[in-house]
């Protein structure tokens, strides 16, 4: 299952997508995220699944644009200087450098913006 955690408002869509068929609940993304956006536990979208899975915490689902903004600004591609003045929207090619995305060995995490 592709779980799109996040929201859409007038300024755009902000979703962290987790492929739960690939995710094995290892929890490395939880450690990698500086803002505690992710957690591992019982799949909120599939009560009959036995294995734990990563998902975005309920608290963070409605503010991802803001919570993820520091990573988008500083940790993508060329580092802090290259991204000075960035809007907090990472280029698709740079998103693999986000801490959560990079930490996932199974490549189960993607960002939509």
């Amino acid at each position: 299952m592709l779980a799109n955690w996040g929201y859409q408002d007038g300024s755009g869509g902000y979703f962290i997508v987790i492929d739960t068929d690939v995710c094995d609940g290892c929890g490395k993304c939880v450690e990698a995220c500086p803002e505690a956006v992710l957690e591992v536990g019982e799949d909120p979208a599939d009560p009959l699944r036995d294995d734990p899975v990563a998902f975005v915490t309920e608290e963070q689902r409605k503010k991802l644009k803001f919570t993820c903004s520091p990573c988008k600004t500083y940790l993508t591609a060329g580092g802090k200087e290259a991204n000075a003045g960035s809007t907090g929207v990472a280029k698709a090619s740079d998103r693999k450098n986000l801490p959560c995305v990079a930490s996932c060995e199974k490549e189960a995490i993607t960002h939509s913006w």
Partner: protein
Amino acid sequence: MTAHETARAETQQENRELWRWEESRWTNPDIDWKAGGIISAGIDVGSVSTQCVIMVDGELYAYGSLRSGSGGEDSALRGASRALEGTGMTVDDWHYCVGTGYGRVLVPMAKKAVTEIACHGRGANWMYGPSIRTILDMGGQDCKVLRVDERGKIVNFAMNDKCAAGAGRGMEVFCDFVGVPITEAGERSFQVDEEPRAVSTTCVIFAKSEAASLLREGWDVNSVLAAYSLATAQRVVELMQRVGLEPELGITGGIAKNRGVSERIEKEIGMKFNARTWHNPEYAEKEVPFDTQIAGAAGAALFAKALAEKQKGK
């Protein structure tokens, strides 16, 4: 009519609750719940409405749908007693109950809380049948787009619950503002000479002020309703495209009853939603009312059955 009577009639008109939609309940007379089948129940405590569905061995036995109160626990209890009305069954007879919706953790009799995403997928699959692949649920306070497989298991989903725009509550507020009963809003929005442009904003608060200025410009109420319905539809379509559209399409939730919005969505995406009829020919034959609002609670009841069996097996 005397002046006094006219004044009173006007007051009554003012006091009409234009946002109020029809509450419902139904019992299956052909099922004897005392026969010993697994009795599972699902209670969907939403932000605007509460539904309770009771099943015996996975067959629909009874359901009730009503407006949520301010307390989740109270709403759950009222929902349960609405469904139980006249059945002789009590909450103690339930083998397993699953709570879902915004108030899912507040359902006192629920042994487990399951998110509405999972429940709606399962419930819509049960109502519309296994050929359904994409489900749009327009609830009171959020809208969800789910892609499911033939068993109702979620394959991909997105949910927008950041604001009331594109949701039932927004439509309620808007109907109240323009003075049109919500049950007539869909019909009225088509009684226009020409389809207007969408209101530019779908935030309920701002849409209201935009409607006020349109009315001042001389627009009639039906055109304003059409403009708001179109804006709501466009808003939802963005979310649908994110998840992807795979036929066949099903629509659940309260707004499914508003053709002003659902038909505009169909026009925007160039696809049709399946007819609001039961997949199960038995239910269709019995003329069980097809209430799109019960999908979440129905899914919860089906999960309750699965969980009850799992528990027994252990």
